[in-house]
């Protein structure tokens, strides 16, 4: 079964690779991946769907949460969430089936974004399985080309973000001074005021 993971991460070079590295290092193939900035342009929201063995699902999400650039990784698979995808379909259809194509497009609540003598370009959004059906239907009208966005997910639960508060950096090492090189493991203060969900 496909697992959907939603990740809030810092918009920094290499951050994407760190996340996908958790999966590739374990030999998993990513089915879909979308990423774009959030309301805060320094942060990105990523949705990944991947087929992970049941036993390792929690482990994968935990490993992602460990990444320094990741603020929060959560498994949307078994929790209340909306998952949507967009597809662009170019269908080359004969003149006599144009009306039927338009009708089908309407049934799927899709939009015609280009029309030419050769056929249409259609934009559809919805549940990924629904889009599979849409593509199947369009295929019956002629040669098609498809570009899918991959799943975009959003949890319907309120998830509190637990962020690390700032800590004091190394200070000049005078007597009694603290240097981060002598900070005992986990010495930084933990816990912080809840931050609104982004």
């Amino acid at each position, binding site marked *: 079964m496909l697992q959907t993971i939603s990740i809030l991460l810092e918009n920094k070079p290499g951050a994407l690779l760190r996340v996908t*590295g958790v999966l590739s290092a374990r030999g998993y193939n990513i089915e879909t991946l979308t990423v774009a900035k959030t309301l805060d342009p320094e942060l990105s929201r990523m949705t990944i769907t991947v087929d992970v063995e049941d036993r390792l699902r929690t*482990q994968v999400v935990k490993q992602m*949460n460990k990444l*320094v650039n990741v603020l929060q990784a959560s498994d949307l698979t078994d929790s209340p969430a909306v998952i949507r995808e967009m597809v662009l379909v170019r269908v080359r259809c004969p003149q006599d089936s144009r009306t039927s194509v338009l009708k089908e497009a309407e049934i799927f609540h899709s939009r015609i974004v280009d029309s030419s003598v050769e056929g249409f370009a259609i934009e559809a959004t919805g549940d990924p399985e629904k889009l599979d059906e849409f593509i199947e239907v369009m295929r019956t009208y002629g040669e098609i080309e498809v570009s899918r966005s991959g799943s975009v997910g959003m949890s319907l639960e309120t998830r509190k973000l637990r962020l690390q508060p700032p800590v004091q950096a190394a200070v000049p090492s005078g007597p009694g001074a603290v*240097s981060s090189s*002598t900070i005992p*493991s*986990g010495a930084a203060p933990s816990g912080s005021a809840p931050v609104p969900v982004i």
Partner: protein
Amino acid sequence: MQATDHHPHIRRAETGKLMTGAEMLLECLAREGVECFFGYPGGVTIPFYDALYSHHIRHVLVRHEENAVFAAEGWARATGKVGVCCATSGPGATNLLTGLVDALMDSIPLVAITGQVHSKLIGSDAFQEADTFGITRPATKHNFMVKSIAELPQIVHEAFFLAASGRPGPVLVDIPKDVFQARGHYTPVDTIHLPGYKLFTEGHAGQIRRAAQLVLEAERPMVYAGGGIILGNASAELTEFCELADSPAVCTLMALGALSVNHPSYISMPGMHGSYAANMAMSECDLLIALGTRFDDRVTGSLPTFARHARVIHVDIDPAEVGKNRNPDIPIVGDVKRVLSKMMKVMHELKAEIAPEAAAKKTEVRQKWWKQVRSWKEERPYDRARSATEIRPQHLMDTIDKLSGGQAIVCSDVGQHQMWAAQLIGFNEPRLWINSGGLGAMGFGVPSAMGAQMARPDKLVFAIAGDGGFQMSIPELATIVSQSLPIKIIVMNNGYLGMVRQWQTLFYNNRLSSVVLEGFPDAEKLASAYGFAGRTVEKPEELEDALRTAINYPGPYLLNVKVTPDENVYPMVPAGGAIFDMVFAPETPAVVSA
């Protein structure tokens, strides 16, 4: 301006001072308390080394970048401070890789600085260019590429903070040549803000209480202490806990010395080459108290049979380790030092509430368990037998144990000698046993001993290696001489890649494919070629004197000990087997009592 701790005459740079990136990096290192680091210069790091020329921080020129990381690890493992190493771009950086993964596997705090080609050349397949940032991503806890001098100080301090805090690990900072050369106004960094870096330190109070309750109720408790005890400086808490819980304890390969070898609770190392008593006790306990450990396959053997009667308390600072290999009954994510202190506080409270009759009954049940554990210990102790004709490897390690008295630093390479050393050499305190545990990187012993000896000039430091691993480290003999490090290199020479040979013997019909190490050099000549002393010893009756000579020699010493070539390490749990199914030596060899 403030003077530094170690160098009172050195004054820290003023805010706004104009300096180069190279000078800024050194300023940051000094502020982090770095006294010494290990490295190898190259084209793009020349500006950095130029600034270093007139700086107080000591740089140790190694003979291969891999050994710079291993030496920095030795420093870090011996002190608990962040080890630092430096390499140039391209081949310099790629040579660091093994050591970075080693530090990652063993959670060793480390900062690696690498030079990178000029920013304008990145991505052009420039001379000595490699995608260090990409290559080292899965080899580090975190890594950075510095894009401008403005972000340099912040990144360097973040790197040190990441390396040392939480579950420690290696952090790499890749710096292009032009950033070293650029000039900028230096502003000291006062805060580090890494919102996504989650630190879990305290442990859940409710879980700690439940754990304390279980510890007191258990009939056959067992403490399973891992490297986290040493990394978290929790040795004193562990000792107190074992006493309060009245429980036997094992220390894994990464935790030797966390509980003194002389402590009555201490059994030995568990696992593939652990003792009979340790593995039986792990298998038969009804409560396993896992502290700062990760249920490594070399400890657990087959997971379904591991500690099969036991409920499990698992304390670890890394949430991803809890439940990774074994689902604990009580998971506690936190710093083991703090969690143990809190747990003991609760235990004291709970103990006060127990009625005297119940307490007496409990003591009786526990004594039965202790009796059982002791009888396992007596039944099959480690083999320390000696031969009259050959030096058995066990004889060698037993003698080192006797001469070091649990006080010396022992830096081990990887292989059979590592297992015999771990079995037979005892340690009275943490940070004396230094080895490549998780990665098992051959060539680790000698360079890590350099770092350990630099950090602890007061200590007797042994580098114990096989004839295979030693030959991976020979270039560093020059470093040892140039730095006047009085390391005692003990080569356990059996003429084989012994551990591979053992597996071939036991599991591959003794087809000894590519494991015979011919052509080992004359130790005395080799040592004297580098300007120090060495010898080969073959006769069992000469061993102890030879070791004493090495120890008393006022400088480095190479002792090549020719041992029985075909000795196997026992007990052995075949890979994937249950740890109570141990294989023992087929027969007890001819014995001369120790």
